[in-house]
Structure formats: structure tokens, C-alpha cells
């Protein structure tokens, strides 16, 4: 399905795939969320960078994470800033389970906007966009049914 055609995949302003960020935006094609990780101190580094900000090491590798996260904060957006998902939609900042200091700005999908809460457990779900410059899998998040109640 083409982005913007049909209800399932909304128009998105897609990220430019650079040497530094391509893996982040395409790992979803293999069903995984991956983050850059320092091989020396094990810190996840986000946004991706050429050196670990803690020990300046250049030995970094893309590492899969569980895709589990917690909603740190969110907003229910009612304003059409540009073409995008049907209004209203939820924009959230989530903290990833493996290292909460790594946050992702994302959308919470798969539930009513009024059901989103700070502290809510969520899990990654990818939105696939075909594009002439290379396909992109945007990491969105949905309520995590397997999280402990």
C-alpha cells in the first residue's frame, strides 16, 4: 500500500536515510527495534553518534532491544500541522525498557487516545513506508498486553 492511499498508512514526512541513521529506520523490516550500543561500556546511544558520549569509544554496534517501553509523557494532538494521521492522534515520549534514559518521540496507536496514560507499558509496532529513496519502518508503540498488570 502506498503511503497516504487508504486509511491504514497515513502520510508521513519520512526521515532521510543517512550513514549514521539508516539502521535505526530500517531494522523494523526484520521486526526488530535496534539501537546503537557501545561495546566497551554497554550504554545505548541515541540518537546514534560516531562515538560513545560516555567513553568516546568508536566501537559501537547496532543491537536489538525488546521493543518494550513506558510512556513518559504524551499529548493528544488535535491540530492538522501537515498531512498526517486522522485527528486526534497521540504523540508520546517513551522510555525504552533496557535503558530508560533513551527516549523516543513516537505515536501511541492501537488504543483510544483517551486511554493513554503516563506510566503505561507499551511495545513497538512498525509502520512500513515504501519510498524511492529506500523503505522506512517507523517505530510506533501500542499497549503491551503482556505487561504485568
Amino acid at each position, binding site marked *: 500500500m502506498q503511503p497516504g492511499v487508504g486509511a491504514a498508512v497515513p502520510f508521513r514526512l519520512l526521515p532521510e536515510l543517512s550513514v549514521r541513521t539508516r539502521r535505526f529506520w530500517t531494522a523494523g523490516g526484520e521486526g526488530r527495534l535496534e539501537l546503537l550500543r557501545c561495546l566497551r561500556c554497554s550504554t545505548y546511544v541515541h540518537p546514534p553518534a560516531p562515538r560513545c558520549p560516555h567513553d568516546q569509544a568508536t566501537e559501537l554496534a547496532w543491537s536489538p532491544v525488546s521493543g518494550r517501553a513506558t510512556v513518559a*509523557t504524551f499529548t493528544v494532538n488535535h491540530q492538522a500541522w501537515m498531512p*498526517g494521521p486522522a485527528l486526534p492522534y497521540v504523540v508520546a515520549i517513551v522510555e525504552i525498557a533496557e535503558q530508560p534514559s533513551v527516549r523516543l518521540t513516537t505515536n501511541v496507536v492501537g488504543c483510544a487516545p483517551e486511554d493513554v496514560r503516563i506510566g503505561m507499558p507499551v511495545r513497538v509496532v512498525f509502520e512500513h513506508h515504501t519510498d524511492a529513496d529506500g523503505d522506512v519502518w517507523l517505530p510506533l508503540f501500542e499497549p503491551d498486553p503482556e505487561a504485568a498488570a
Partner: protein
Amino acid sequence: MTDRFERDACITGIGQSDVGRRLHRDPLALTLDACLGAIADAGLTPADVDGLSTYPGLAMGMPAGFTGAGATDVHDALRLRLAWYDSGLETSGQLGSVVKACMAVACGLANHVLCFRSVWEGSAQGRQGRAGIGAGVPKASGTMQWTLPFSAASAAVWIAMFAQRHFHEYGTTREQLAWIALSGRRHAALNPKAIYRDPMTLDDYLNARPIATPFGLYDCDVPCDGATAVIVSRRERAADLRRSPLQVEAVGTALRGRPSWDQFDDLTTMANRDAAAHLWSRTDLRPADVDVAEIYDGFSFLALSWLEALGFCEVGEGGAFIDGGARIALDGELPLNTHGGQLSAGRLHGYGFLHEACVQLWGEGGARQVPGDPRVAVAAAGGGNTCGCLLLSRA
């Protein structure tokens, strides 16, 4: 505190163009109105100006109307003969450009620096409404790639999330936050240049259409056309000018957390935490000494957050501090945004607050003048990941 560079920097003149929702005038013409106004206000001529500083200058990829003139435009239009000039977006908020001017005069690079900020977002947006950041670019890149693909295309969305976190942690309510907008509107009624001057009630505020929860329409400032300028002079060159110079007591420029909208360590404070703490580390004055506060309200929550950061109340107590509006009224213990702020007087983008701080210290506020001969004012601008502030005093 004798070795701080601020001792050698004064504000000696201010100027402002016409301000309106959509003026449909050449933005450089508005800019020159403000600049020539400030030069004359200081008792100078363009030939006396040997420094030039602006925010952001000619910036690529910004929303339509974000900058009405670059440093080069003003430099050439006034045929300035400059010893020092500077512009740029990557500084301590909009007032970072004024801090740089203070440094330039203090270190002897210039005697009189013309500082300006010019916007024409009202006319540039036309009937299309407030455009999203990045609208029209083919791909999201740089820092914007972490927000734009998720349709988070406005600072309204990003800052709404900080507000939501503050509400969650401290129990702050919409009914409390409303007082930033309601108090500003009361003051705007007394400001002939303000854009929105009609009375606003709590019901008006609460019933406005939602933008991004917890923000409704009246939590968001109004894009406008207008330019503002100030003259920063070297102290030893300020004594013989037209006005009694305003001393720059201290500046706050620090950003110790990550320079990021979503990776900053504390989602309820953001960069104003560091800039405000830095300001108080550079002066013997204390928050209780401040007579008037002109504080950025591009979105209502930013003003609440700045009040906490500047120590006028504890972090988390901002909602209770402004509730009911009495404390921040013209005759309150901390008059706030006496011209109406950007919410009601227009998005002059930071410089409007500095201009109004000077107006109040010079006692020229007219119907909105704060009583009691105010002598110390704080001007603070920016939000999210970039903030800066100045403390001014009159001898």
C-alpha cells in the same frame, strides 16, 4: 561578583515597529523602523553604531516569516560601519543575541551594538493558518528526523508533553495554567499595540478549541508581524546619552542538560532550569529583589516553568503561584508580562519581553505601568532545549 563582564554592559535605547496580525509590509521596512527607533531613543545616529547582533539571522529551513531581516540586510540598509557583527540560531534562546552584544562591548570590540529581532509570520502564513515545522521539505533530517516522521510538527506538541508531565507529577491543572493567558490578556487591554485586547474569561479559555492536550488555542501565542530593537552600550560610553542607562546585572546562558527536546533529563523543567540557575550565580540580587518579570509565553506553560526555574516559587508550585492571577497582576507581588506577553501582544519572539522590561524600568508603561517605581526586572526567553535570560536594574 566584581569580575563579571556584565558590569560593562548597559541598555541605552529601545525601538519597536508597528505590530500587527498581518501588516503586509516589507519586513525589512519594519525592521528598520525598529532599529532607527532604538538608535534615536539612545540619542545616537547610525554613524555611532559599531556593532550589530540579531537572532536568528538568515536561517534556512525555518517556518515562513520566521526572520524578517538578516544582519547583512540591516548592515547594508543603514550603511553601518561595523567593528563587530553576529547572528545565529544556535545560542541561548532569542536573547542570546543580546548576551553576545554585552560581551562585545565588555571586551572592547564595540561601543554601541544594535540588536534586533524581526518577524512577519502573520503575513507569511496568510490564510493558511499556522504551518507545521518542516511543512514542504522533502525529507526530515538532522534533529527534526526524531519528531517530524511521527507528525509531531510543532513546538506546541513538544511543549504540551512537558506540560502534561508537570500536570502528572505536581497536580497542576488547566484552571491554574489559564492565569498565564488571562493575566496577560488583562495587561494587553492596557497596551495599545497588543493584538488581542478584548477581555477573556476562564470559560473562554477552557472552551477554546483543543490544540494538543493540555493546550487549547489560548495557550498558544499569536503569530504576527513586527520588529523590536535594543541598543547595548559599553558602560563608559553610556553616561552622556539621552537616557539613564539600564545596567545588565547578570545573564543566564547555561545549558547543562542534553540540547534535545526529548532527551533532556527532566521533562518538566527543560533548559530554563540551567539558564535561570546560571543567572542567579552571577549576581548578589535574589528573586525577591525582582520588581517586574517579563517571561516567555510562546506557550503558556513555558511562563509557568520559567517562574519555577527563576526561583519565584518552588518547582511544582507554579500552578498554585499563579492561581487566581492576583500575584502576577500589575499591582501584585510579581507583575508578569505587563504588555500582554506573546499570547496577547504578539509573537515578537523573545525581544518583546526585553523591550517591555526596559519600558517598565524607565517608567514609561502608561496605563500598564507597574506602580512603585520598579528598579529590577528580569527578561527571559526561549523554551524547550534553548533558553536565556537577563537581569536588568536602574540606578
